[in-house]
Each structure stands twice: as structure tokens, then as C-alpha cells.
């Protein structure tokens, strides 16, 4: 554990991520350095006034390295300029939720971080009160300073850090009234800005070690292939190549530079044999159609009598929505460093799940987990891809085989064709309306590929429709799949919100009014359990409608969408304008309820970035397959959104004082629906498949 202030003496507070009820405890600096205390995060205040906070969660661009210390500094009344954040490494048995995923870091840590800051402040006050001979209750704090106004005394935190370090922490600590927050809610710049703008080695790909070898790996070129034979003679003869090793279905070219390995890989002669069906995108379409009608479905939620409702319906609306596979495309491709020694393993790299990497390394090497260290680097995006440990597993295999420190590097082509995709999915929605245009029945069937459950059965509109059936059918594919930013809902939200728009239109109702009426119904007479907060959902809908001047703008085609995911609520209005006969997305207005906003600057960008990501992939993202091989392998074939294609994104946060919830994902799911519904208003053509660019409405428009 790197504790910057440990050398100088001062207050060291250990606190626990694994037990939110446990109080922070004062610890001895020497034992921290020796690694002998069982705390998994630290707050230290040095005699030099420096404040160091160890942030244990991986930073992938979600801003945790800035937001976490802000929470501590708020309760501590610290001068933000004196606060330093250090990325914690994986501490065996200590960090509990050291995972970045599910937008869960802030909600998980909110209480603990506040308690740590408040406890440190309490101890500094106690220390000052004893020295000054005044009651602790009369001491105030601000900007890392202690004051006793009546006695005319003041001191810096550093002056009392050592004395505070000799006290014991209280079991209960009073937290601030949230209304008095000074730092939380402000715009604080990313703590790594300077390092990023000057090109400092921060990322996994930037990690180099003296004597380290490089490895570029040839994985099976099609999903469904397995390795049959390898002729590596020519590759081994290439300059700089140290060895070519084989493990599982992979062939690793190991050498002295990335470029040499990459070139040598091109002359490998490898034969594969078929181990599973080699699927093409046409196969997926056929499989979807077949399973949609004939598949054995697993019921996910059932309320009332849906068949009777559809029989008695005055009108039935039915539509199918489909999306393609997507690679994650973090701009830093997968890479990982491993040094397998006889007595232990050193792992360094960008991972969203350091614990998983360690567990896999233990399995491969047979070493106990405590002999395996994981250093987490900054990560050039994750989007879910770095939740997998495949790249770490590869590094361990290769290092073990060549008995040297090795860095495995994926080229962009490897990254894009290497799997763990967001899988394609098809949904069929059916709605039954009575003669008054009330939705009396709702059916959703999802056909997924390796999805488990491609529905979110308890999300809206569940709870607002008396007769409802949500089920799903699964197809198992050899194409590897995994979570992709806002798993399932990254497409389901669009499909559902687009379909709701279709139903509202069929009912002859305004899309916003229609949604609000459903929510009022869920509130008054819920159909089964309601697992989202109806009032919070209503509030974001109303805020988005108000801020977008819904339905009152001339020459602007507006589309509405709202979604609850990762404990946060986001409503969006897309605005399309027709310019020279061409419908163009101009604006997105987002209303966001993520509870208390910690860092305004980071949160604003998180929402804008989520909207841009959602729109970009809905418009352009398309990965297709031929006989198990992806057709796209780099950004020339797979299109990512660029600056000239973005709308303005106007963001409004709900101020309700509720404890903060996630923001890394929730802005993405509603984006596609807001955009598709706006394009519909402009063109009268529904966009039922992604990418939109391939839909009829966009043919000839580009």
C-alpha cells in the first residue's frame, strides 16, 4: 500500500469497505507500511497538511478517482487543493467491492467515505480542544483549519495530525446535514487532468518493465474453431522473436517489441478444426424468427390474464425490434502484464475486476491467491469489456510458459474480433388497448443470444398494466458475449420506449401524457410488485418535458424516452429538425435523477458522454458475422460516432437530496428511444432495428 504521508507521521485512519456499519479506526502508520492491519482504505493527514485518500476502485473514465475523495473532503472540511488521491492496488482479502461495473461504486461507498471524513475531523477537533483547553463543541473547521473564535486560536490540520493519531475514534459519528455541503455538488476538475494532458504513463498499455517481453496472440479466427496444428518455424526465425508458445486454442508470439511480434504473427501457419456451429448473421435472423414463434420460453413476469385481455381488446399493436452484436471498442485495447515466478505472480494492467484476474492466475499457477499481487492502472475506457479476465489469463499463461515478465498486447483487430460482445437480440412487443385507449394488456418476448434473461421484467411498464406477460427464449452461441455498458437495457430501453410511443400513438394520446397516466395507474392500483420509484420517474418525465418545452416548439420534431436503470432515473427528449429535406438530430435534453450530484463537472460529462455513446451505437454500431468470423475488424469497418455527428446535449439534474446512485450507465439506455421517436415524428417511419443508418428511413440520407 503506497501511503504518501506514511513517512512523515500524522493521523492515519483505516476504514472498511466490507462492513458499512463498522466505524473508522485510528491506525499506526508503521503497521500500514508493514501491511499488517486489516483495513482496506486509508485516509491520512500528514504533519505537512497533506491529505491522502486511497481510492480502491478502478478508474475507467467514470471519475471515481475525483468523486471519492470529494466525499471524504466534504465531511472533513478539507482544503481540496491539499487532497491527493492514490489508486489503491488489489489488497488480498481487503477490498470488498473493488469492481467497476453496474454503476455501483458511489452508492456502495457513500456512507463509508462520509464516516471516514467525519471521524478524521472529529479527532482533529478533540486533539485541538485538549491542547487549547476549550470545549470541543466550540471548535469550528474550514479549509483544513481549526478555529476557536472566542480564544482567538486557529491551527492547520497538520499541526494536530499527530496528536489526533494518538486518540481513538468514536464508534458513532454525526454526519453533516446534506444541505450544508460546500464541496459536494461543485464542479471539481478530474484529478488526473495534468497527467493526461502531458502524456504521463498512466494506462495499462504504458506499463513497461526492464527485461519485459511482448506477446501478440493469434486466437481462433472464427468462433466455433479450435486449434488443430501450428507451424511456427517461420515466425520463430523473424527478427526479435524469442519464442512461440501455445496454450488452449491460442498461439502467442513472444518477442522484443510489439511490431516484431505483430509481423511474426503474420507468418504463423495454423490449422483449425470445427468445434461448434460457425454462425453467420443470417443464421441469427433465422434463429430469432424460429425461436420467437416456436421457442421454449421462460416466464419472467406474469400479472392478470393476458390472453383474455388481448381477446377483449379494441385494438392490438404489435412490433418487433432487433439490434446487432457490438464490440466494446475502448480506445485502449486489451493488454495485461504478468510475471509468473516460482514463488508468486505479479499482475499489472487495466482491469475492472482485479479480484477475478487474481483468482484466475491462482488457478493457472496453483499458487495461493495471497502470493499474487494486482496493480490496477488507469484504463482507457472499459464499457464492460474489462470485466472479463481473458486478457489477464493470457498474460499469466504466456509468462508461465516463457518464464519471463510478459506484456500481452491486443491489436485493434484483436480487440474487435476477439469476442465478449454485446449480443444481438430480438424483441416482440404486443399491447392491447380497450375502447378508451387504455393499455389493458402487454406482452414482451425477448430472444437472446447467451443473454440469460434479455428482459428486465420488473421495469416500467410492469406494475402499470393489469395483464402482462414477459418471457424470454435463449440461443446458445459459440460467439463469446458479455456485459456491455448498461447490459440488456442498452437496447431494451430503446425498443420499449419506442414501442410505448407506438402504443401512445395508436391510443391517440400524447407520449408524455400516456406515460404519466400509466405511472399514475401504477401508483393507484399497482399490478403486482412495483420495483422502481414511481414518483422519481414522474419527476424526471416532467422535468424533461418542461426543459424541452415539450410539444410547443415550431419546426422541431420531438421524441420522448424515459428509463430507470442502475438505481437512477433519466428522461430524454430528442429534437430533430429537417434541413434541406434531411432530418437532422439537433438536440437532446436530459433530465437526470441520480440523487445528490457529487461532482457537477464529472456528472455533466458522464451524462453527455452516455447520450453520445447511446446515439452513436444506435445510429452506426453494427457487427456482423460470416461463418463465425466478424466482418468488421477496425474503425474503418466499424463506425464510431465523431464530433461532426453529435447533437447538443442539455443536462438537468433533479435536486432531491436522496443518497447518490450510479451515473456511469443510466444516461445511455434512453438515448436511442428519444432519437428514434423524434425521427419518427419527422419522417413518419419507425426505426425498429439498429443501426438506424441501415433502416429505410435513412436510405439515401446518410
Amino acid at each position, binding site marked *: 500500500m503506497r501511503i504518501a504521508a506514511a513517512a512523515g507521521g500524522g493521523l492515519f485512519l483505516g476504514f472498511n469497505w466490507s462492513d458499512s456499519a463498522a466505524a473508522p479506526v485510528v491506525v499506526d502508520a508503521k503497521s500500514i507500511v508493514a501491511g499488517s492491519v486489516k483495513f482496506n482504505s486509508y485516509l491520512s493527514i500528514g504533519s505537512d497538511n497533506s491529505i491522502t485518500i486511497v481510492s480502491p476502485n478502478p478508474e475507467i473514465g467514470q471519475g471515481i478517482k475525483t468523486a471519492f475523495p470529494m466525499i471524504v473532503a466534504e465531511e472533513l472540511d478539507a482544503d481540496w487543493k491539499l487532497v491527493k488521491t492514490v489508486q489503491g492496488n488489489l489488497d488480498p482479502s481487503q477490498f470488498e467491492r473493488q469492481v467497476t461495473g453496474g454503476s455501483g461504486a458511489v452508492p456502495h461507498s457513500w456512507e463509508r467515505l462520509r464516516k471516514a471524513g467525519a471521524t478524521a475531523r472529529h479527532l482533529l477537533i478533540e486533539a485541538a480542544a485538549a491542547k487549547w483547553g476549550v470545549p470541543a463543541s466550540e471548535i469550528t473547521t474550514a479549509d483544513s483549519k481549526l478555529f476557536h473564535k472566542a480564544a482567538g486560536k486557529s491551527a492547520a490540520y497538520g499541526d494536530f495530525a499527530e496528536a489526533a493519531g494518538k486518540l481513538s475514534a468514536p464508534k458513532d459519528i454525526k454526519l453533516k446535514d446534506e444541505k450544508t455541503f460546500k464541496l459536494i455538488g461543485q464542479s471539481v476538475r478530474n484529478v488526473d487532468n495534468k497527467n493526461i494532458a*502531458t502524456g504521463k504513463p498512466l494506462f495499462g498499455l504504458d506499463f*513497461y518493465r526492464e527485461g519485459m517481453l511482448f506477446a501478440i496472440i493469434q486466437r481462433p479466427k472464427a468462433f466455433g474453431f479450435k486449434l488443430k496444428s501450428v507451424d511456427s518455424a517461420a515466425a520463430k526465425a523473424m527478427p526479435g522473436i524469442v519464442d512461440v508458445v501455445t496454450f488452449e486454442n491460442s498461439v502467442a508470439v513472444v518477442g522484443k517489441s510489439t511490431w516484431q511480434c505483430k509481423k511474426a504473427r503474420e507468418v504463423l501457419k495454423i490449422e483449425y478444426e470445427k468445434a461448434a456451429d460457425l454462425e453467420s448473421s443470417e443464421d441469427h435472423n433465422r434463429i430469432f424468427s424460429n425461436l420467437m414463434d416456436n421457442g421454449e420460453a421462460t416466464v419472467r413476469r406474469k400479472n392478470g390474464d393476458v390472453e383474455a385481455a388481448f381477446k377483449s381488446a379494441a385494438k392490438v399493436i404489435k412490433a418487433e425490434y432487433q439490434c446487432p452484436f457490438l464490440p466494446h471498442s475502448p*480506445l485502449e485495447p486489451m493488454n495485461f502484464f504478468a510475471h509468473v515466478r516460482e514463488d508468486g505472480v505479479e499482475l499489472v494492467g487495466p482491469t475492472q475486476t482485479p479480484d477475478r484476474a487474481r483468482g484466475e492466475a491462482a488457478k493457472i499457477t496453483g499458487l495461493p491467491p495471497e502470493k499474487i499481487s494486482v496493480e490496477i492502472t488507469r484504463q482507457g475506457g472499459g464499457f464492460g469489456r474489462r470485466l472479463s479476465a481473458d486478457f489477464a489469463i493470457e498474460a499469466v499463461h504466456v509468462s508461465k510458459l516463457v518464464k519471463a515478465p510478459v506484456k500481452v498486447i491486443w491489436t485493434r483487430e484483436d480487440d474487435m474480433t476477439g469476442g465478449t460482445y454485446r449480443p444481438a437480440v430480438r424483441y416482440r412487443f404486443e399491447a392491447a388497448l380497450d375502447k378508451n385507449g387504455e393499455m389493458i394488456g402487454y406482452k414482451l418476448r425477448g430472444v437472446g443470444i447467451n443473454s440469460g434473461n434479455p428482459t428486465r421484467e420488473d421495469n416500467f411498464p410492469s406494475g402499470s398494466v393489469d395483464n402482462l406477460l414477459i418471457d424470454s427464449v435463449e440461443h446458445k452461441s459459440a460467439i463469446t458475449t458479455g456485459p456491455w455498458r448498461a447490459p440488456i437495457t442498452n437496447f431494451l430501453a430503446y425498443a420499449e420506449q419506442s414501442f410505448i410511443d407506438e402504443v401512445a400513438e395508436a391510443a391517440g394520446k400524447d407520449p408524455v401524457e400516456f406515460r404519466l397516466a400509466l405511472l399514475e395507474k401504477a401508483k393507484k392500483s399497482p399490478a403486482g410488485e412495483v420495483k422502481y420509484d414511481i414518483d422519481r420517474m414522474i419527476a424526471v418525465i416532467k422535468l424533461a418535458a418542461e426543459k424541452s418545452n415539450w410539444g410547443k416548439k415550431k419546426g422541431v420534431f420531438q421524441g420522448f424516452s424515459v428509463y430507470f436503470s442502475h438505481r437512477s432515473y433519466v428522461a430524454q427528449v430528442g429534437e430533430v429538425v429537417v434541413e434541406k429535406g434531411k432530418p437532422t438530430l439537433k438536440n437532446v435534453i436530459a433530465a437526470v435523477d441520480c440523487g445528490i450530484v457529487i461532482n457537477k463537472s464529472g456528472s455533466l460529462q458522464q451524462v453527455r*458522454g452516455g447520450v453520445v*455513446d447511446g446515439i452513436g451505437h444506435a445510429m452506426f454500431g453494427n457487427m456482423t458475422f460470416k461463418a463465425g468470423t466478424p466482418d468488421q475488424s477496425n474503425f474503418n469497418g466499424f463506425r464510431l460516432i*465523431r464530433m461532426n455527428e453529435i447533437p447538443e446535449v442539455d443536462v438537468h439534474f433533479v435536486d432531491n437530496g436522496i443518497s447518490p446512485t450510479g451515473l456511469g450507465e443510466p444516461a445511455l439506455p434512453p438515448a436511442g428511444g428519444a432519437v428514434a421517436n423524434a425521427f419518427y415524428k419527422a419522417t413518419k417511419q419507425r426505426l425498429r432495428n439498429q443501426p438506424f443508418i441501415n433502416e429505410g428511413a435513412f436510405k439515401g440520407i446518410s
Partner: protein
Amino acid sequence: MALFKLSINNRAYSAEVEGDTPLLWVLRDNLGLVGTKYGCGIAQCGACTVHLDGKAVRSCVLPVSAVGKAKVTTIEGLSEKGDHPVQKAWDEVDVSQCGYCQAGQIMTAAAFLKEKPKPTEEEIVGAMSGNLCRCGTYHRIREAVKVAATKTN
């Protein structure tokens, strides 16, 4: 293998590599200048942007043998203290999310503003649309280029 003598950030470097090695990998693997990033290897994303005699180029497709006597500037050498107007604007506007593409964005913007110190918004968008940002920080990149433009000259 051949010995290449390079002038990078006003310093002399030499590297013994194959002539077809892209400048990007010479910078990263041989010279320890890792601020220049690998993103796609085919000049599609701009993460590897460096200056060659002041002009923005994609170092991932530039063989080291083609560099010759040209002066190379990387993000590490854009300014001595990290205070180039573009670098400062990037902090002021708080552009970065993950930050991986930003060195390339900054190098593209710096070369662009040298050519066009007072650009219109349309010109900024035109100049910056060759650089991908997977986090979607485009609004802030656009804003930061505007801020930098007011502070250049």
C-alpha cells in the same frame, strides 16, 4: 535492423529497429515516450497523433524510415511545463473522461490552431472530427479548442 537517428522534442534519440516499424512503436517500445497512444494502427482514430515539423501526422502509419531529419514533437514535448494553451484549456474545460485519446486530441488541436489561430466552430469541428473519443467528450473538446484559441497569440 538499422540505426535511426531521430530528433524528438528537441532532443537527439537513436533506435535500432526495422525500417518499417511505425514511429508510434519506436516512441513507445524503444524510446519510452508512451504519451503517444495506440488506438487502431490504421490512421482512423488519431490517438497516435504527433507533430512532424509542426504538422499533425498519424504516427501509427508513419514508418520510422520515412521520418528522416524531420523534427518530431510528441505530447511530452508540446510544452516544457505542460502549459501550452491547449493543455491548459483541456484542464480548464475538464475535458477528459478516461483520457486515453486526449494526447492525440491535444496534438491535433495544437497543430490546427497554429495554422488557424481564430477558427470558426465549423472549422474546429472539421479539424477535430478525425479524432475518435470513445467516452464522447466531443462537446468539451470543441469547447476547449475555442478556449485555447482565445489564449493563443
